[in-house]
């Protein structure tokens, strides 16, 4: 029983980062109908940025062992700016290209960025020494890993903020309208391009946040993005393509499935288990587990 509870807990904590990555992917898919195959490389880039910032120094005493987390906000804004550049330089024109060229564009960018990281930073594994790495709290026989726990709490907070933004703000309402139909939204006076720009910045900014939350306990290397993004891809299809808040539940579900297979079978089999669920969802419920009717975003 304690193993079961511990696995669920670990899974939820891992799932927090998947949720952040998946949420950005689904936001971009929802408004632009584009799967960003380079999403994992933005995570990788964010991790290198965060590692670079963290190696400058950590905050002084008052923050105790949490001094390294100052990098979260700057990394998020740096990556949001990268997302803005990504949209203006590439996606702005590619928006007219149709699905296949967009896939090829982002996959080319993805492997190009992996190569660039290897050329610039080498293929070595980087970790800034910090007290969060390996730290854990024990309560009631359960072991709470501190790094993943902080990542989970921040991811949850970010989800609540995103859900509020989509529901209540002017941008959110425009985004939902564009997701429903870009043409109709434009006829109603909504600037779809502005929605695309802001969505891409938010999506890449969220990945930057995820990157900063990962670096205290996760090694940074050129292919690191693949480990997260493949799971996030499966998560968004299982949850429902374009469903931003659903993607969060998808991410958490992936984490729990991974952790349970790791405890009872073997970690290597977890991707296979998730993949079986993915195929089952495609066959039986292609709109996704958490999408009802025609609801978008």
């Amino acid at each position, binding site marked *: 029983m304690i193993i079961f509870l511990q696995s669920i807990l670990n899974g939820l904590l891992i799932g927090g980062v998947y949720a952040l990555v998946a949420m950005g992917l689904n936001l971009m*898919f929802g408004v632009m109908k584009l*799967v960003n*195959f380079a999403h994992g490389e933005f995570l990788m880039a964010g991790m290198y940025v965060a590692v670079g910032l963290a190696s400058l120094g950590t905050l002084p005493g008052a923050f105790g062992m949490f001094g390294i987390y100052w990098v979260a906000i700057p990394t998020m804004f740096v990556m949001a700016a990268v997302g803005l550049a990504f949209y203006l330089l*590439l996606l702005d*024109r*590619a928006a007219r*290209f149709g*699905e*296949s*060229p967009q*896939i*090829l*564009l982002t*996959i*080319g*960018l*993805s*492997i*190009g*960025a*992996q*190569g*660039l*990281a*290897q*050329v610039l930073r*080498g*293929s070595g594994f980087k970790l800034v020494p910090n007290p969060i790495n390996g730290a854990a709290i024990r309560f009631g026989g359960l072991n709470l890993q501190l790094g993943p726990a902080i990542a989970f709490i921040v991811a949850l907070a970010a989800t609540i903020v995103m859900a509020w933004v989509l529901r209540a703000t002017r941008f959110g309402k425009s985004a939902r309208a564009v997701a429903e139909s870009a043409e109709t939204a434009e006829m109603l006076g909504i600037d779809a391009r502005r929605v695309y720009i802001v969505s891409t910045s938010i999506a890449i900014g969220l990945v930057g946040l995820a990157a900063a939350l990962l670096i205290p306990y996760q090694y940074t290397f*050129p292919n690191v993005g*693949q480990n997260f993004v*493949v799971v996030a*891809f*499966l998560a968004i*299809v299982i949850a429902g*393509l374009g469903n931003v808040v659903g993607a969060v539940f998808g991410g958490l579900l992936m984490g729990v499935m991974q952790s349970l297979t790791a405890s009872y079978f*073997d970690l*290597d*089999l*977890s*991707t*296979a288990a998730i*993949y079986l669920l*993915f*195929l089952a969802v*495609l*066959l039986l419920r*292609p709109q996704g587990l958490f999408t009802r009717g025609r609801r978008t975003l």
Partner: protein
Amino acid sequence: MRRALVIFAAWMAAAAAGLLLKNDYFASVATAMAFLALWAQSWNLLCGLTGNISLGHSVFVAVAAYVTVILFQQAGVSPLLGGLLGILGSVVLASIVGAATLRLRGPYFTLATLSAAAVVLSLILHYSQLTGGPSGLAITFAQDSPFDLEFTNVRAYFLIATGLLAAVTLFLDFLKRSKLGFYIAAIKSSEEAAAAAGIRVALVKVIVFCLSAALTALGGVVYVFYIGFMDPNFLSGLTLSVEIALIAVVGGMDYLIGPIIGAIFYEAIDVAANATFGASGGWDVMLLGFAVVVMVMTEPRGLCELTIRLLRLIHRRPARFWS
């Protein structure tokens, strides 16, 4: 018939050039180029005809290679028979993934193929008693044994790979003008219209995907005996899948010769990067990836189209000048 002769002559020329290469490094580059071109051509059988982008073709290389070598080493099954079983395994996998995704609109197929590579890799790592786990399997042999695909002279593999490439190219050319080819062309121009005309759209797509998987797997069977070592992270890695796809894209998906041009381009980058920066890695995939980005943004039809436009430009300018 004329095309067949052209392709056969091209193979003969490539084979002669390969056999004349005295330098072992360039011979290995040429062989790698031949295998990449073979895989890219097989990949393009799917994408060039139906427009479905697979980012998991390395899976078929890995499945065929592992089935063949495990049967060969553990049960003494000849690679010629084991290879057929390996290809069959790849086709079964392709039909499952294809049946689940090719009837849906949207990026499901690409996502499903991309993650299939990760799944197969994790299965190879898990069943390590059979597959050797992360350290892979080695194939060692001391003498020639053609029926076991064992040749001590690596140029034999170059001959086989280019021969397979010629055969796949010929097959693709034949397929385009067959009944199935016309079905595919109809589907590509409008799925609704094709379905209304009585074509079973999803079935045709799955068949084409299986054909593409089988040809890729065929290359995989020969490849492992050439390389003599199976590294799961390479064989079932995302990098190989993406390389296969992007090579075809860079060359030009609308042309029979496109994937071959792409493979030459990629190996040329690789050789140049190795000569300039040393074999530290990263340069080849970086240049390939960014080349594709530039290509999609400027000339999505690839190097072939670019060359044709360039030739036209050179050809036309004097005429315009004098008229």
